[in-house]
């Protein structure tokens, strides 16, 4: 390697194409004429939603797949011709790092050290540093299967670092990892790049992570939309990004929904009680010709990567087309006034001696959006299952729609709709057949059933896919179908478990618009999410960790609990980290030893 010379790129791809054949027979273009470069000593991010082709590209670079056409050189070696030589010199962490769960932390490390021929002397020098970096030192004898999700990712990373690779490939290293571990992982990665000159190519669907990299490559449906320093993309939004304070009597969510309807606006998201929006074109007067902004106080904002990304995305997706997504109910739930619609008091659920849910209490009022936030294993899904009557509570009070779930589960179920985390409809059945099945399951028959299915087809724009097997639906439409099925029996309460995980930013905005519209019409929604900025769409949020509710309130109240940093208002993620850390204080020296940052 000639890192000293003209600094040639570590990875060069030219016109790479890769297609897959699905079981159903149709061909998917995973990568379509992709060209990219990864410079030495740099942190390069592959950004894009699920299905953009990130994993395929990284597997090609690791020599685990072969491209149909095109050229891919890693460390100046043609990967397709000599994958073994590349594999000996790089490090690779797949999305789900294949740790051996019945081996201990140390045994996993040793296995990889043996594979790479790391000598005992080198191990003595290297292991303590890896342990310090990952804060796994106390757990060397623990079986990998008993580690938390975040610790597993750190161990996976450590396994790829038993010797310093010439290129490190990381496939979505932070997916499914709680915000604290995410922050720790980022510290490790940046430290490696800055202190040891490591070259890293990582993929991510978090846009804020791309912003922290030296270079970004934006992928969308197998094509490169843009590549360059992230700031370059952010600059596209310069002079077009503003923050609007909603006028008195209006919610940020309401203002955001109306802004999204305006053809002059590319993007709008709630942020800290205000609305961040991006105009389609630079404009001296931010309020100009946008009716929704009347009476709102508008100030220019620092453009972010996501703002530039949205400009790019809206530019490709049928330019100017408004976001789909307002859903109108034909029979909104009757208002109960201000009566509490969900009441949870001292809810406990034990599995053996382990309390998955530990004295949780909260209330939800009708027409509200309630967000349940927390890392994996915090007890969100267990709470959900009890609320839906799928799992009996060990103790505590649980009233849904005025019905005590301990006595009348069946009648409560008629009034709730549930959208599971994973797509849980019948894949081989068509859209119509799925809707018909769920309508029958909810006891709808004859004309009533026809009406409801017709409503769902119209409101969720599913008619053109009516006869397509639902497993072949494009990602966003699967989500729509799942929601349509859950709304067929006109429930007044909707439960959604991680509905936006893996969705692209456009689909996420569309989803939230629907939820806002439903809430306006009186439907109560309870949602879990790991995109913390989405908490801004909620009326109230509860932050859970280790089975307990640590904080509860409006997003603004929760945000205030963050450690104040001068110069800007804290984000929801910072608040979350501060709250969870305070609660765990003394329990684990979380990444306390991880040193300097760039």
């Amino acid at each position, binding site marked *: 390697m000639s890192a000293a010379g003209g600094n040639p790129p570590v990875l060069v791809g030219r016109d790479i194409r890769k297609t*897959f054949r699905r079981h159903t027979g149709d061909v998917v273009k995973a990568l379509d004429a992709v060209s990219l470069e990864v410079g030495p000593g740099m942190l390069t991010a592959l950004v894009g939603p699920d299905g953009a082709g990130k994993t395929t590209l990284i*597997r090609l670079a*690791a*020599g*685990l*797949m*072969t491209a149909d056409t095109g050229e891919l050189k890693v460390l100046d070696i043609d990967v397709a011709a*000599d*994958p*073994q*030589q590349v*594999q*000996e010199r*790089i*490090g*690779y*962490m*797949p999305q*789900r*790092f*294949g*740790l*051996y*769960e*019945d*081996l201990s932390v140390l*045994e996993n490390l*040793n*296995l*990889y050290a*043996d*594979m*790479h*021929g790391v000598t005992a002397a080198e191990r003595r020098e290297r292991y303590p540093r890896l342990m310090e970096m990952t804060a796994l030192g106390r757990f060397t004898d623990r*079986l990998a299967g008993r580690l938390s999700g975040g610790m597993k990712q750190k161990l*996976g990373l450590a*396994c*790829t670092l038993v010797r310093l690779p010439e290129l490190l*490939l990381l496939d979505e290293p932070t997916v499914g990892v709680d915000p604290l571990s995410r922050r720790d992982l980022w510290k490790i990665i940046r430290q490696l790049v800055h202190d040891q000159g490591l070259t890293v190519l990582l993929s991510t669907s978090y846009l804020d992570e791309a912003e922290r990299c030296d270079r970004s490559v934006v992928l969308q449906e197998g094509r490169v939309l843009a590549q360059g320093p992230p700031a370059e993309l952010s600059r596209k939004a310069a002079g077009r990004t503003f923050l609007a304070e909603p006028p008195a009597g209006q919610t940020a969510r309401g203002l955001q929904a109306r802004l999204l309807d305006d053809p002059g606006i590319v993007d709008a998201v709630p942020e800290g009680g205000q609305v961040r929006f991006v105009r389609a074109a630079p404009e001296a007067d931010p309020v100009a010709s946008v009716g929704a902004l009347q009476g709102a106080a508008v100030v220019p904002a620092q453009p972010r990567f996501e703002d530039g990304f949205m400009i790019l995305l809206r530019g490709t997706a049928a330019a100017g087309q408004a976001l789909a997504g307002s859903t109108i109910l034909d029979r909104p739930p009757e208002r109960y006034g201000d009566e509490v619609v969900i009441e949870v008091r001292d809810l406990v659920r034990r599995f053996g001696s382990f309390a998955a849910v530990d004295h949780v209490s909260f209330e939800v009022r009708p027409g509200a959006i309630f967000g349940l936030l927390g890392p994996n294993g915090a007890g969100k899904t267990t709470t959900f299952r009890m609320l839906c009557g799928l799992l009996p509570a060990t103790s505590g009070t649980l009233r849904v729609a005025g019905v005590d779930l301990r006595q009348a589960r069946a009648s409560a179920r008629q009034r709730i709709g549930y959208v599971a985390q994973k797509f849980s409809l019948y894949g081989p059945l068509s859209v119509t057949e799925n809707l018909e099945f769920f309508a029958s399951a909810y006891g709808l028959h004859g004309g009533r059933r026809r009406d409801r299915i017709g409503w769902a087809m119209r409101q969720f724009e599913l008619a053109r896919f009516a006869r397509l097997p639902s497993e072949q639906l494009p990602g966003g439409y699967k989500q729509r179908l799942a929601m349509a099925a859950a709304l067929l029996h006109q429930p007044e309460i909707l439960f959604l478990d991680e509905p936006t995980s893996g969705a692209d930013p456009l689909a996420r905005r569309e989803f939230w618009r629907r939820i806002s519209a439903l809430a306006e019409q009186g439907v109560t929604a309870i949602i879990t999410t790991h995109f913390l900025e989405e908490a801004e769409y909620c009326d109230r949020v509860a932050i859970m960790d280790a089975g307990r509710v640590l904080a509860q309130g409006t997003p603004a109240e929760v945000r205030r609990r963050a450690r104040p940093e001068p110069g800007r208002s804290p984000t929801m993620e910072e608040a979350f980290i501060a709250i969870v850390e305070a609660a765990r204080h003394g329990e684990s020296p979380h990444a306390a030893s991880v040193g300097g940052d760039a």
Partner: protein
Amino acid sequence: MNATERSRPRPLSAKGRRVWSLVRKETHQIVRDPSSIAVGVVLPVILILLFGYGLSLDVMNVPVAVVLEDPSPDAVELAAGFQLSPYFEARLLTSMSRARELMLARQVDGIVRIRPDFARHLSLGDAEVQILVHGTDANKARIIQIYAQGAVGQWTARRAAEGKDVAGGPVIVRDRLWFNEANDSHYFLVPGLVVLVMTLIGALLTAMVMAREWERGTLESLFVTPVRIDEVLLGKTIPYFALGMVGLSLCLLAARFLFQIPVRGSVWVLAGGSMLYLLVALGIGLLISTATKSQFVASQVTVLVSFLPAFMLSGFLFDLRSMPAVVRAITTILPARYYVAILQTVFLAGDVWGVIVPNAAVLAIMAAVVLLLSRVITRKKLD
């Protein structure tokens, strides 16, 4: 790939260290994973006990009526022989009509009739004992018939030994049961058991643990290291080969000490034949796991193509010669068939080289083919 390997020769020790490390890793997993222990150790033990004590093709304590119409001491002695035999539960009667009733009511499965003139005919040398057997269960009937003949034969032999002249005696043709003088079905069930255990460990367990690695993505991480595919395969083969030998030892110990079954041939021949079969089974397991890459499918396919044929078509439970020609033709491609031939020979007959060598040769060829094939089709690729 070969070109680069030649141009950059690496010391064998690096390869050896990687294989050794993989073997160690696998051993840890076997020891810690309850399902491996279950298939490798617990299942053989259960099968041994089940087959040894639960499943037996022997007929014991058959209820028979002994109709004693002749009160002479000779006749009484013969009747007592039935009463004392472990194979029969004899009810002594004096009237044939009563015996018929019992037979019709299925309270006895056979009648032994000693006629009134038995003693007289005995002295004349043409004595007869009538044996009537309930024929609804043809298999059982045949066995009872042979047992009864055996009981009479024993009585005759005893008389001869005591010097009582029987003047030619009642001539009863007795089938001597070859290789199973004790008439104990464990003699052929236990060798069959060895086949099942070896198939379970070699094919099923190996297919499942390898498919698990594909499924959990552990191979994906492992592939992007200097490790070669043959090293990965060796790392799987060696520990499960060892586990298979443990299973074999358990079966042999059970055979020897639990059921007192002799091994007529050499234990080394037995071990050699078992190793060959184990290699074939391992190769099949690896092939299936690479082709399916899913634990569920791999286990289904393995049971279908290796376990069930080993159970039904290897000749251990059902005689190959009694199968239709088509089925018999199919059995020729089943490795278990050749292994059973070796096992039965070594256990029951001895080192009959004319049987052992050709069967072992077929197994060796099969092992080479499946192992090479699995080496060729398993690649460090995900597409």
